[in-house]
């Protein structure tokens, strides 16, 4: 006890020191424990997050697998599976190709709310010309709702005859008329565009392009336009004239008269711009031949 009392003063301080150290230690341990608990909580949270993510992805994979069993033979091992977007694109491209194919046949159609809308496209030897539309109602009976056919095409006559009885024939006849008109117009336009130096002034024509009157010359013939051509297309479904009258002035020499007759024959069998092309080629041949 003496020692104890003798060490009291030192003992108290040491005791206090020891207590302090203990408290410090305890505090540190407490802190550590709290930190660990915090960490644990955080990790638990993370685990939860990852679990939900995993579930979602799993669901996606399941869905894709189910979808894929519907389609046959698209997936190969080694390639990634095509996304739904890529498949949709492929489908769209295929449909567009089909529609383009239909458009190229000349007559295509689309169902509308109250009927059908037909589109007739015209073409001449690989060049696509205008398209015309015919919107039909089906009820109460087949009738035209509205259309974009030019006014000088005898639409009323054609539909009066065929529309209610035979739609196919009606469309076919209308397509013939429109195509023939487009081709006649194309020939006249080509003539004016490419051979204007062989024509005197402008070409005289009418709305249907079924009467063409012009004065022309063969290339290299000098400055006069000795020939007068009058082309009549009585058949509205045809793009070649039914009558072609080529005349010269009365004082013209015999050779010109013969040429006129030959041209008359030519115009009835060959498209207008091609006929003029052949004149140029004949001219070249004459020049080239020794």
């Amino acid at each position: 006890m003496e020692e104890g009392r003798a060490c009291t003063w030192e003992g108290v301080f040491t005791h206090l020191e020891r207590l302090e150290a203990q408290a410090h230690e305890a505090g540190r341990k407490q802190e550590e424990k709290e930190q660990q608990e915090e960490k644990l909580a955080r990790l638990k949270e993370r685990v939860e997050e990852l679990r939900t993510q995993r579930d979602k992805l799993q669901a996606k994979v399941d869905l894709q697998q189910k979808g894929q069993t519907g389609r046959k033979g698209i997936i190969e091992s080694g390639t990634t599976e095509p996304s739904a977007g890529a498949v949709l694109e492929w489908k769209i491209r295929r449909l567009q190709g089909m529609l383009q194919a239909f458009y190229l046949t000349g007559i295509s159609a689309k169902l509308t709310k109250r009927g059908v809308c037909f589109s007739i496209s015209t073409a001449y030897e690989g060049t696509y010309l205008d398209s015309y539309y015919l919107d039909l109602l089906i009820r109460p009976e087949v009738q035209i709702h509205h259309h974009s056919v030019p006014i000088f095409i005898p639409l009323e006559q054609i539909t009066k005859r065929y529309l209610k009885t035979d739609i196919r024939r009606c469309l076919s006849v209308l397509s013939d008329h429109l195509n023939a008109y487009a081709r006649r117009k194309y020939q006249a336009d080509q003539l004016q565009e490419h051979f204007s130096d062989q024509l005197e002034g402008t070409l005289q024509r009418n709305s249907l392009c079924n009467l063409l009157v012009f004065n022309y010359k063969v290339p290299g013939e000098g400055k006069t336009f000795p020939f007068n051509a009058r082309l009549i297309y009585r058949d509205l479904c045809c793009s070649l004239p039914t009558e072609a009258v080529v005349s010269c002035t009365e004082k013209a020499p015999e050779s010109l008269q013969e040429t006129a007759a030959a041209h008359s024959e030519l115009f009835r069998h060959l498209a207008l711009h091609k006929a003029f092309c052949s004149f140029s080629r004949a001219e070249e041949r004459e020049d080239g031949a020794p």
Partner: protein
Amino acid sequence: MDETVAEYIRRTVLKIPRDEIKSMLQKWGFLSEAELQTINFHQIKDNISQEVVQLCEENSADIKQAAVLDIIYNHIYPNKRMWSVYQMKKTGEEPEIFDFQSFKKKFKRRLLSALENVTINFREYEDNAIWIRIAWGTPYTKPNQYKPSYVVYHSQTPYVFISASVLKSNMPLLCQALVIASSYHDIQEMELRSRSLNSLKDIVFKRYNQNFKTYCPRPPQERNAEPESADLRIIHENRSEKERIERVTWEIFGDGPQPQLEFAQYKLETMFKSDPKMEVLDKKEPFRCLVKFSSPHLLESLRSLAPAGLADAPLSPLLTCITQKARNNFKIKEKRGFFPGSFVSP
């Protein structure tokens, strides 16, 4: 040269805007290029017209040649006149070979046999339009050159566009001459009038951009690619409603510019529908009133009504059928029988 011809040429040149005078005289082709060079086109119009008259005197212009200048002026400025549309009807199905020369002959013959004092001029244009100018006189007076009628006819179509002079009494004769010359049977005035000749042609020849449901045209969603990322702070509350209105408007009016009309007139002869207790009209009589829509460009303004929020979409079919029915003058009567409401009489 006659005094009247000189005065007429002078007045016609005064009508032309100064910058256009030279090109129009060139189109006329009556004065040579050399003579045109001598005119100073930078002075005031009075002096220009005096010089032109002087040159025409030297070349002894007559009234027919002066009339050609008038046609050229009206062809370039057709909007100064009010045009109405007439439709011709024919029976029979012979294919038409339209011959301009025989048309001219028949027309002139018919008019001249009825009325000696007329001045008739024809001019053909590239788009197959034939312009006819007729100045009318009476058996005792010379033709009045200042009030001519104009007729525009596209061959092989049943439509004629007439801008009549004030003297309406000559209309029957004119109509008859047209019918005979173009080998038709009958002619009737359509309920379509406007100052814009080209728009009238667009409507009856169906050259305007009609809306056809085919696979080729692009759908409206692709067209209106507005930059949506413009400002993310702006939220469009009624986006779906706005899109619906745009879609309905596009279905009715389509893409592209509309023909230009100045008015649409509806003459109502319908019964006044009111609360029976109000007894506004104790006699059941049709309430007559006239509703007229006017605008510098009626169809465009109708098209923009719904997107601007000023009207419901779709618009009333009475407004949207104008181009399709090719009329802007309607009479609305009460419909008795199957459908309630009003209907449009032919």
